């Protein structure tokens, strides 16, 4: 949740400016005494590097195949491991016979589970390590598992039925110990955003809309599957991990193996995608990291254990499905009087399938709000956070309902949202986005292109415009540390353990350090992705940049202070009178009094200046959340039911973007992933056998080049003031509105309301036939 605490200890106070560049608001901010004056809107014009588009530093390695990912690591004598997952969704394991596998030439180690209860297909059962991937696959086939199968339930709505097979005994349910339980349900869990009195609000309403919406399970499907390379040298364990959280791997593996953290080193240089599924020691539905370490110990050789694509779909997490009932009440002029939001979600065998975040945060002028959420257990792999967990589903339900309410009221959906908007940032974003998409072209009457200016229908292909809002939060981790080392020769190292998951993080950190030190970003040698370096946060919740940038800046600032002390006597000035830029240190009042960065460094006693600092506390923010809104233009073939996105515009607040080029890449990517969920993605479990029907990348369809549309990112930077760089995370927020924006555009094009995703032709044609009947 948004963090707005003021530190308890004495503070220094700064006047800063925050808000939109056009109308900055003065703000008194209270950072910790150890912190430095924040960058705010006044700084932007003077930045040498911050805020300038810059190609990512690791780009040349990645485009030439030289970047080494975990999957690419090869150590001398390395063996290849392979996990073996349960073949059935619910069972008791009677026996696991590994004798044939062990007898196979080339097999060097075997592991079997102690657990005897299977609750989802793909759950860890056994593993092997062998001299080649092919021999490991042969050995896996020779492991004989005997099951006593049990009844299972594969899908949310089936699992909610009173007579559905139980996934857990009531006392074994993994979530919501204080919640009511009934069959496979745990809940209701009330929302922290509940306010007012919804009964009263609905009594005051002149128009009421009720709708039910459904989102299926999506899998993360990072292109690099989960996996590790584990290598022992005596007691010392080195793990190369494809992870978003190096230090969580160290902690989890050392705990599971009962060894000291000091003996475990985890390394990740480049990482092939995670989207939230790689935040734990292994994965939510597997302990493969620990298993790989055990296999390596047993074999006396390094073991590479990467999951295959089928396993990746089954046991490494997913986004929960959600069944959402939304009831909205409003006055005839569009003023919301009440919102009741109920959600049933299935995270498989795990809890945490809530989706009420957007409903609680959006349309903040509505005085009466109530949300209730239930977890529904199914015999399927546990979920994992997936890019703004629960928020895309929740925004699909809520923002589809708002669109339906607008239709009922006869009000432009954009005007309805403005009427109930509490965020000054989003209020400013509406017109920016509307202009970019050409909102005035929309069909005034849904399905009738004669009432808009989107052109004439091309045969059966009809166009429409839609929009939706999203919200996210300012999270930050104070467990963020950075070291700056300036050598006597003037060369600079920035050392932080935190991993780079491909967001542009490493380039951003070099820019921040260079800005503060007055040198070029390329002159900062960045060491990262190694638990031997100072500890950093896991990359989840859009925290990495805004956790690490402030501590990197602070470390660079302190190193700069020490250099100024060396330079001051050379310039006959006091350290506090100096400034630095372009590799030079000079008098702030007289830039002709100058000394080189290297000249100053040469004066140090000893071989280096080293500064190691911990992140200052998060302090009061301009506003708690991250605002965003999106607009979509789609084309629907009303004869085939095929939906094509033509264009999307995402308008996002992102604090001060350190590197707009990579920031916008993330926005575009989130929007594209969201469109993929809206149109294509659906994990299908077979109702007869409970295993996944499409555990690959051709039947689990992901948006591909041929489906691509024109995508535009517009940033509305807001100096955020929660940290000394005013940075905020942007990885997650832009995927929140996308599903609803596309669905609302389909409605505008056709007057068909698709309330169940993905919007495959069958569902669109069904919605079209319902619309014709109505």
């Amino acid at each position, binding site marked *: 949740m948004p963090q707005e605490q003021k530190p308890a200890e004495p503070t220094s106070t700064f006047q800063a400016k925050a808000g939109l560049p056009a109308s900055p608001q003065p703000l008194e901010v209270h950072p910790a005494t150890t912190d430095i004056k924040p960058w705010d809107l006044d700084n932007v014009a003077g930045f040498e590097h911050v805020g300038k588009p810059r*190609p*990512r530093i*690791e*780009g*040349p*390695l*990645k*485009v*030439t*195949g*030289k*970047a*080494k*990912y975990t*999957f690419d690591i*090869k150590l001398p004598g390395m063996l290849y491991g392979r996990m073996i997952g349960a073949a059935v969704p619910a069972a008791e394991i009677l026996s696991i016979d590994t004798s044939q596998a062990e007898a*196979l*030439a*080339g097999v060097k180690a075997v592991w079997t589970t102690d657990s005897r209860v299977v609750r989802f297909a793909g759950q860890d059962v056994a593993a092997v390590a062998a*001299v*080649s*991937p*092919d021999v490991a696959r*042969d050995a896996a*086939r*020779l492991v004989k598992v005997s099951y006593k199968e049990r009844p299972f339930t594969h899908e949310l709505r089936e699992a909610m039925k009173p007579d559905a097979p139980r996934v857990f005994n009531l006392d074994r349910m993994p979530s919501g110990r204080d919640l009511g339980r009934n069959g496979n349900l745990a809940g209701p869990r009330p929302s922290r955003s509940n306010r007012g009195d919804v009964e009263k609000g609905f009594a005051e309403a002149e128009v009421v809309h009720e709708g039910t919406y459904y989102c299926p399970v999506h899998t993360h*499907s*990072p*292109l*690099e*599957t989960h996996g590790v390379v584990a290598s022992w040298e005596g007691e010392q364990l080195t793990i190369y991990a494809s992870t978003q959280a190096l230090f969580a791997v160290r902690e989890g593996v050392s705990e599971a193996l009962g060894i000291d953290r000091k003996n475990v080193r985890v390394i990740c240089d480049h990482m*092939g*995608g995670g*989207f939230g599924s790689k935040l734990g020691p292994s994965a939510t539905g597997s302990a493969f990291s620990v298993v790989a370490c055990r296999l390596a110990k047993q074999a006396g050789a390094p073991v590479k254990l*990467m999951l295959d*694509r089928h396993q990746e779909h089954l046991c490494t997490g997913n986004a929960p499905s959600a069944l959402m009932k939304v009831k909205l009440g409003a006055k005839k002029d569009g003023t919301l009087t009440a919102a009741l939001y109920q959600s049933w979600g299935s995270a498989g065998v795990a809890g945490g399938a809530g989706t009420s975040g957007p409903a609680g945060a959006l349309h903040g002028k509505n005085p009466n709000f109530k949300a209730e959420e239930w977890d529904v257990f199914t015999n399927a792999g546990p979920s994992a956070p997936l890019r703004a967990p629960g928020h895309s589903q929740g925004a699909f339900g809520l923002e589809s309902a708002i669109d339906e309410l607008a239709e009922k009221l006869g009000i432009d959906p954009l005007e309805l949202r403005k009427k109930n908007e509490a965020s000054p940032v989003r209020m400013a974003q509406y017109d920016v986005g509307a202009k970019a998409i050409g909102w005035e072209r929309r069909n005034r009457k849904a399905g009738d292109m004669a009432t808009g200016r989107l052109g004439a229908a091309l045969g059966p292909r009809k166009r429409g415009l839609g929009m939706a809002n999203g919200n996210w939060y300012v999270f930050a981790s104070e467990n963020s540390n950075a070291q700056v080392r300036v050598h006597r020769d003037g060369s600079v190292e920035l050392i932080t353990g935190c991993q780079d*998951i*491909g*967001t*542009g993080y490493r380039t951003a950190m070099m820019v921040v350090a260079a800005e503060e030190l007055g040198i070029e970003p390329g002159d900062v040698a960045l060491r990262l992705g190694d638990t031997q370096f100072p500890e950093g946060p896991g990359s989840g919740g859009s925290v990495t940049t805004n956790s690490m940038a402030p501590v990197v800046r602070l470390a660079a600032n302190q190193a700069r202070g020490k250099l100024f002390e060396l330079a001051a006597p050379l310039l006959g000035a006091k350290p506090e009178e100096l400034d630095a830029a372009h590799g030079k240190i000079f008098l702030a009042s007289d830039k002709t009094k100058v000394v080189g960065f290297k000249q100053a460094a040469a004066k140090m006693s000893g071989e280096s200046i080293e500064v190691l600092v911990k992140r200052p506390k998060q302090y009061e923010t301009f506003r708690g959340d991250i605002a965003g809104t999106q607009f979509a233009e789609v084309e629907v073939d009303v004869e085939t039911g095929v939906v094509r996105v033509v264009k999307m515009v995402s308008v996002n607040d992102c604090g001060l973007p350190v590197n707009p*080029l*990579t920031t916008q*890449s993330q926005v*575009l*990517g*989130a*929007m*594209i*992933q969201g469109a*993929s969920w809206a149109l294509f993605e659906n994990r299908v479990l077979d109702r007869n056998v409970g295993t996944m029907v499409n555990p*690959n*990348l*051709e039947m689990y369809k*992901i*948006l*591909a*080049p*041929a489906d*691509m549309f*024109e995508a535009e990112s517009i940033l509305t930077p807001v100096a955020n003031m929660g940290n000394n760089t005013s940075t905020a995370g942007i990885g997650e927020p832009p995927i929140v509105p996308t599903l609803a924006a596309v669905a609302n555009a389909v409605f505008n094009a056709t007057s068909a309301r698709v309330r169940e995703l993905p919007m495959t032709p069958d569902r669109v044609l069904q919605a079209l036939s319902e619309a014709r009947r109505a």
Partner: protein
Amino acid sequence: MARRPPPPDEGREQTSFSRRSFLKSAGVSAAATTIVGAGERAEAAPAVLGPNAVTLNLRVNGAVRPVTVEPRVTLLDALRNELDLTGAKPVCERGGCGACTVLLDGAPIASCLLLAADAEGHEVTTVEGIGTPEKMSPLQAAFVEKDALQCGFCTPGFVVAGTALLAKTPRPTLDQIKAGLAGNICRCGTYGRIFEAVQAAAATRPSQAPSQTPSQRR
């Protein structure tokens, strides 16, 4: 009962088996792993390889690179595990994602769907053969410039597919670019910028004298 594959060291010098010795050593159930020699080998050697490791002389990025692998090993695994050419990535391992794309005699193929033995006698070009960090091809440089990558795991496949596209269609339209890259997927959602990079690289190609038409350039 499954066949017992030999340790990789066995049969290192064997480049071929007679059909009789093959059946004797492997048992008939191993027939699924036999392959028919391809290209030049088909004329020079017996038609059946394996099941033990065989030495293959692959031509990769302009050099002859011998590898000793079981005949069932894919070109992708041979490149990655034997030659440390890890630019081509294993992602779906069934031809559905394009991440393992390499050029075979200039044409893009899924290296997860081709046996290494079948690549003998052909020229294999991997992403490493297209450029180096110090000397990137125009397309690679355009990928960096346009930020047409995030995690980068799909990127080598896109670079190889894009290279093949530009060789065939030096100035592609947007639709031709989409068609040329249709076999590749990116989970980070970098498509738009990939299209821009291909267009930018096309514009910088030296072969693009203004007077030339696309058909003349082909």
